[in-house]
């Protein structure tokens, strides 16, 4: 029995030392799992793709595709299968794969379509992009300087956040933060209402619906604050308290809008149902 234990301990030791030590200190020490986002996730996805487990876009978002790929890796390499990238998993992954951080980040920042499979020259895995998605493509304003885009609830897209941020910035950039979230919430409340078009684009560009569309201010480049406001609204916040309309009493010309039941005032806007 003692002999078996010694042999087992020896085998375990050998297997740990047998992990190639390519890049063991590349990851941060943080444990990451579903919902995480950022540099560590980019590295995780790239390394999993290098080994052939991850076949989706490298986008820095730890979603289900990353989760299954990680679980398969853990299973194949005899690690506890939990879909969590902890210290052991990261160490094993670093040992068995290479990660060229500079190259991956450069592709993300350039918005290129690319993959990162091991054994294939990198120059053959990249397609220069001039916009749109693919390979963690990063050409829209909703991305940060690491090339990762914003994480939104599944029913929304990066396009939605961009379009809504434009609308919020054009309509309410001088308003307090809660006023900006409220404007975004009004757009989303309209999406749920049978009285309005059933897409975000349809709502924003409905003729005569938004002043910013009529005067062209919707095309101004939105700032991070407007994007954050949209993100909060998409995650459920509604400072307008279920409003479907808002107006500025100093500039409103429609008599009809005054007939709507008012809910509250935030900054220069009155919100109503």
């Amino acid at each position, binding site marked *: 029995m003692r002999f078996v234990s010694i042999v087992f301990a020896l085998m375990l030791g050998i297997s740990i030392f047998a992990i190639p030590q390519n890049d063991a200190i590349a990851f941060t020490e*943080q*444990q*990451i*799992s*579903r*919902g*995480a*986002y*950022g540099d560590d996730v980019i590295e995780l996805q790239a390394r999993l793709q290098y080994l052939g487990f991850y*076949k*989706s876009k490298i986008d820095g*978002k730890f*979603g*289900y*595709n990353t989760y*299954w*790929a990680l679980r*398969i890796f853990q299973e194949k390499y005899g690690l506890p299968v939990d879909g969590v990238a902890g210290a052991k998993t990261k160490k094993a992954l670093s040992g068995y794969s290479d990660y060229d951080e500079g190259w991956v980040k450069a592709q993300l920042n350039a918005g290129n379509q690319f993959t990162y499979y091991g054994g294939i020259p990198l120059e053959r895995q990249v397609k220069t992009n001039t916009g749109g998605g693919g390979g963690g493509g990063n050409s829209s304003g909703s991305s*940060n300087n690491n090339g990762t885009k*914003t*994480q*939104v*609830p*599944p*029913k929304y897209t990066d396009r939605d956040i961009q379009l809504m941020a434009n609308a919020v910035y054009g309509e309410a950039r001088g308003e*307090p*933060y*809660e006023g900006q*979230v409220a404007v975004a919430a009004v757009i989303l409340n309209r999406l749920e209402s*049978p*009285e*309005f*078009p059933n897409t975000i684009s*349809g709502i924003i560009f*409905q*003729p*005569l*619906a938004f002043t910013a569309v009529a005067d062209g201010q919707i095309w101004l480049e939105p700032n991070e604050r407007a994007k*954050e406001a949209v*993100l*909060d609204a998409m*995650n*459920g*916040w*509604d*400072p307008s*308290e*279920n409003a479907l309309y808002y107006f500025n009493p100093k500039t409103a010309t*429609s*008599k*009809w*809008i005054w007939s709507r*039941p*008012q*809910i*509250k*005032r*935030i900054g220069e806007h009155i919100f*109503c*149902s």
Partner: protein
Amino acid sequence: MRTMLVILTAAVIGLGAYSINMHGKNVSLQRTVLAQYTDNLTDASEKLSHLQRSVSQSLLFRDDNAIHNELDSVWRLSSDVRSSMSNIPIGQEMSNDWLSYLGRLGDEAKKTAETGDYEAWREKMPQISTNLQSLSDDWSAATVDFYKNNGKMDVWLRQVDTKNPNTTFDNVQKTLKDYSEKDFPLTLSESDWQKKIELKALQDSVITEKEALEKVKQLFPILKDATFTVTKSSDTAPYPFYHIQFHQDIRLGYVDLTEKGGHLISYLVERPVDEARLSQDEIMKKAEENVKRLGMSDVAFVESRENHQAWHVTFARVHPGDNALVYADGVQLKLAKDTGELLGVNAMEYIQAETIKPQTAKPIDWKTFFDDDVKVQEVRNIYTDNGSYEQRLCYEVIAVRDKNAQETFRIVIDAENHNVLKVEYLT
């Protein structure tokens, strides 16, 4: 002097040419937009006639297949007219009424096709068909003026803005409103849903402004020294609440509390956020602590999302009867990535609290329910809306298609009748 005159003349000629050019471009642009609006208007009017005919035709058949085809046309055409109507500048109120009427007609056709309750359709539709014919005729008469505007956008917009109460256009609007109420009255479930979102169920006693402020300081101790501005909701708001704005050091934000009982509706702070210092695990622990501290101990974790500055974490109430998650009774928290400070709480859905009717769950054999290359990974019981404002007990299935495990779906299936209520593609 002579040189000045030459320069001035050249400038005037240049400006004049530029102005003529710009004017020409503007007129051309206006004509293009007007042409598109007119096209949408024509399209809407024509399809409205088709829709009326399709509703009428649906009443011809006893044969299931034949009626099914007509229901499909009603659903498709109502969606098409809806889309055209939403793309013409006809005033918000008129647009709302049209979209609502057409949407309800389409939903009715879809529901009938799904449930096979053709008798109810046959009973209801003769009157709707007549009303739709009358609406279609009125609409054609009312919009005829829009074709007589000599290609000028301002004439069109004047037509929309007219305040004369006797115009044919206003008559359409009045008839539309009237028919909407008669043809598609609120169902019991819709009425219950309306009451729920208007917080009619809250029976607690009213709290004062001072008590509301105390409650805020108790819920969010970080604000104990903040400067507050308290306002009350408008008299016409569906439910009365206190809107409390605050300023504390680097923090600016608001809290909304119901006047009845001082229930937390939402809280949101804006402050600069430094680089992330806490791990995902630490953030989740803080989220769990906060949700309990706020008195919501009957909830369970659903999902989390990390972004540039903060984590958004979602919880849902656990139904005491069967431990299924009630998604409609959700709570969302926002936590700063630097310190884990609570930056936001959204408890609106939580305080609306759904009334859940008892339901049974019939087991499903996943091997026969899904295709061979689909692997079921996770199943949990949840309550969710079935699209008709009813909370249904469902199986929430996370399934992966193809052996490479790269396509993940979330499928929500009614646990009693096994109808698929929702399919989402997850990345």
